[in-house]
């Protein structure tokens, strides 16, 4: 059986931590990542001491949840949401039940993935199996769970969806930084017509892609070999990028949901929805469309620019001073490559926007080559440029200016003289030798030459 005949069906349950200062049902600080030690940000309520009750629900958290639901285009907003208790015994849960709401909203879609529902719940604490230590700093942090329909067709599709989801969350400022463990996912994956497997414990955006890729090929291989994947829950091992079957089931899958008697149902009003809807920013998809129209950006450029609000905003300011096409190309290519390489967000990055603008200005005036511009950018990102301006830094590094044809011709003569063997090789028919000579020309110019011009002049000179 051919791979392409096997259709993969994936559904995701994504948990994101809402960006709030205090927990969902008490006033403890939500900062569990940099807290001084285990169980610092806890109180009788979030450790479920006998007698404690949930405080009134954190209204800000609920508002953030509504914001996200609206931004995902959920078309069915429920007018009443009930908190339920989901019972299971595990040390990370202080009360051995988790408070989880009925759906806040249903419908909606993003990147071609339809949304089943979104609801709000409490994060459990953290239990370290090896040491047996339980840390309740995280217990009660508000979570939003986004459940997709089983319509995702490949790990790559899942990645695109998550990228856009991440962008939406970034625009709204409603969720905590998604790469620092505050996003977790469970996935359902099956080969069409075969058993479904659940993969749990995926703790990053990148992990989703790895886990799904592994699981896709595992299941495809089984099916190709005439084996039926077992209907089971598997655990993602992030260190090894593989999924593992759980050795044994700890509990039966019956959480005995009951409405939490301590929490009054929450009403969602039309006025509230209108107010939140009116306050939503321009969302990534809209912005991409506008960038294509307004700035003539390509699909790739619009996508790269719009995945982070800070970058999209910076682009728009830069495009007022510099040719938009040039800026889009540079930011999507040179800059984005460096950001990805460093796993940096634009928002957190030096050099300052002013530096980039100036760099683009000298680039557009052809005062520097693309090659030099990239080098200056890397230096600046490495912190080498300090407080100097882009022009000044380039000047000081002796990289300002582009070699004229006359200058290049004399450098070429110098390079040919130094590389007689390569010249002979080229004349004997070795095309690669030309690249070698071009490289040495570029080296002499310190990148201040246009590589295409160098190639052309070299060819001319050697074939005349």
């Amino acid at each position, binding site marked *: 059986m051919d791979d392409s005949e096997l259709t993969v069906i994936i559904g995701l349950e994504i948990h994101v931590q809402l960006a709030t200062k205090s927990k969902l049902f008490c006033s403890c600080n939500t900062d569990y990542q940099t807290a001084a030690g285990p169980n610092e940000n806890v109180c009788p309520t979030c450790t479920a*001491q*006998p*007698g*404690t*009750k949930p405080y009134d629900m954190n209204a800000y958290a609920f508002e953030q949840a509504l914001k996200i639901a609206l931004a995902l285009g959920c078309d069915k907003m429920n007018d009443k949401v009930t908190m339920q208790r989901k019972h299971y*015994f595990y040390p990370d849960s202080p*009360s051995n039940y988790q408070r989880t709401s009925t759906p806040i909203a249903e419908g909606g879609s993003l990147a071609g993935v339809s949304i089943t529902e979104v609801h709000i719940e409490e994060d459990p604490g953290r239990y370290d199996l090896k040491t047996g230590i339980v840390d309740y700093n995280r217990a009660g942090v508000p979570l939003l769970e986004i459940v997709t329909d089983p319509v995702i067709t490949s790990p790559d599709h899942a990645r695109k969806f998550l990228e856009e989801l991440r962008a939406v969350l970034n625009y709204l400022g409603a969720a905590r930084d998604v790469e620092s463990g505050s996003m977790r996912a469970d996935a359902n994956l099956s080969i069409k017509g075969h058993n479904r497997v659940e993969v749990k414990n995926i703790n990053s955006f990148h992990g989703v892609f790895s886990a799904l890729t592994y699981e896709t090929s595992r299941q495809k291989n089984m099916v190709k070999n005439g084996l039926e994947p077992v209907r089971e829950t598997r655990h993602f091992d992030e260190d090894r990028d593989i999924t593992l079957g759980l050795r044994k089931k700890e509990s039966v899958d019956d959480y*005995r949901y009951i409405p939490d008697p301590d929490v009054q149902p929450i009403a969602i009003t039309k006025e509230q929805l209108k107010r939140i809807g009116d306050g939503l920013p321009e969302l990534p998809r809209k912005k991409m469309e506008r960038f294509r129209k307004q700035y003539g950006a390509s699909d790739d450029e619009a996508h790269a620019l719009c995945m982070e609000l800070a970058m999209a905003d910076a682009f728009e300011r830069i495009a007022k001073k510099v040719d938009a096409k040039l800026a889009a190309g540079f930011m999507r290519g040179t800059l984005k490559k460096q950001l990805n390489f460093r796993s940096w967000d634009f928002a957190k990055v030096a050099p300052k926007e002013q530096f980039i603008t100036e760099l683009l200005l000298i680039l557009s005036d052809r005062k520097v080559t693309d090659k030099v511009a990239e080098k200056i950018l890397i230096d600046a990102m490495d912190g080498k440029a300090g407080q100097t301006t882009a022009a000044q830094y380039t000047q000081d590094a002796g990289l300002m200016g582009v070699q004229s044809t006359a200058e290049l011709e004399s450098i070429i003569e110098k390079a040919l003289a130094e590389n007689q063997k390569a010249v002979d090789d080229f004349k004997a028919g070795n095309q690669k030798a030309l690249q070698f000579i071009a490289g040495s020309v570029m080296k002499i110019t310190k990148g201040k030459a246009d590589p295409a011009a160098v190639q052309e002049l070299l060819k001319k000179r050697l074939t005349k």
Partner: protein
Amino acid sequence: MELLPRTLSTTAALKSGKLTASANLENKIARVEKYDGAVRAFIETYFDDARAKAKEIDARVAAGKPVGKLSGLVVAVKNVLAVKDKKLTCGSKMLENYVVPYDAAVVEKLRAEDAVIIGSLNCDEFACGSDNTKSAFFATVNPVSFFDEKGEFASAATAAGSTEKYVPGGSSGASAAAVAVGFCDLALATDTGGSIRCPAAFCGVSGFKPTYGTVSRYGMADMAMSFEQIGPVAPDAYGCALLLSVISGGDFRDATTAKTVAVPAPNSTFAQPTKKIRIGIPKEYFEGANPQVAKAVKDAIGRFATKSGCELVDISIPAVKFGIPAYYLLVYSEFASAMQKYDGLKYGAKPEANDELVPTVSKVRTANIGKECKRRIMLGTYITTKEHKDAWYTKALKARAYVRKQFDDALTNCDFILGPTMPNLPWIIGEKAADPLQSYLEDVLTVPANLCGLPAGSVPCAKIGKLPVGLQVIGRRGSDYETVSLMAQIESTLVG
């Protein structure tokens, strides 16, 4: 057993300086030392803390500085309520040595109003019971077992040898017993299905369960969350009103009280008829009751009506018969959920062996939770499973709504409902041990108020032999002040 000084006379004596807080406390301590060996009300006494507090109050009074509303009154607290740095046992082995790190909202308020907290009181384990025999530690005994007609304490020998030890009711049996025997001026108790009113009736004192959401439950260990309230037990309705005015009011730490305002302190309108009221007498409250009890309550209501000129209306609330099944099914479900947290891993009883998670938790629960609580956990777990939920849990919710509707309708027609608090007289300890259903049936007249969230109280109205009979007053949701005020009117009619 008319030993009780009325709350008003105690507060008057304290205010005038005739009685110091310290002297009042020492009187109480003396009684505790003399009689608690027989009554067994206290789980823990806080005599040192109480003496320090009384002394501090006396110093403030002497210096002419302001003092709180409960200044110098000695209060004891049912041991399901958190008193910071003291044991919160809930009458269970599971929490036998658990020291609670915070004050319940009601305890904060007691402190703020200068009550002198004397100690914590026994109860049925996690408030599951109607007679106080289900405490994991010891059974509290109804003081009527020890005091003769003249109010004299029977000799220790008689007491020890007596086969007639009556239950004080439950689950707040020790709260009512402590008030009845004068161990404290006032007590705090909790009522999930009658746990304040039943012991108040059995011990011959006043007790009141407020409208659901009137008093913050922050710091009250859960039994069944959608039913329960903290309320006062006192020698008289005035004491209930005074304590209620202190403990009621909104608290952000209990979301069900978010919109609550405090019940006013008893003022000049208290115990005064403000208008001609209509009182409903549901026939279902009398049909199944012990005929002697039914007659005593009817007589008392008749006397009150004659004196006060209120209008009595015979009514019928057929849904009363669904009260017990709806109540218990929902209580089981909520209780099983509430008890999940007791896994021996965080606080309370410690697991013996460090086995796998499930067997470890299972063993520690098996060893430290009593029979009645286990029964409720098992049943609650069973009826909330996917398979059985619709047949039991969901149906019980519907029955609850049905009962609620009928009571609301009745209370549209009438201002109050009156009837017996308990269908029977106090029984002898051990008498109902064999069959839990027998014990559940005793709650038939008290659970409707909890199912419906209505304010309800019990006042003593008669005695049959030496055994007290309680008259129950049920008001409209939110009419707590008026309900306690009516209790006081009835009380003054019957006493005076």
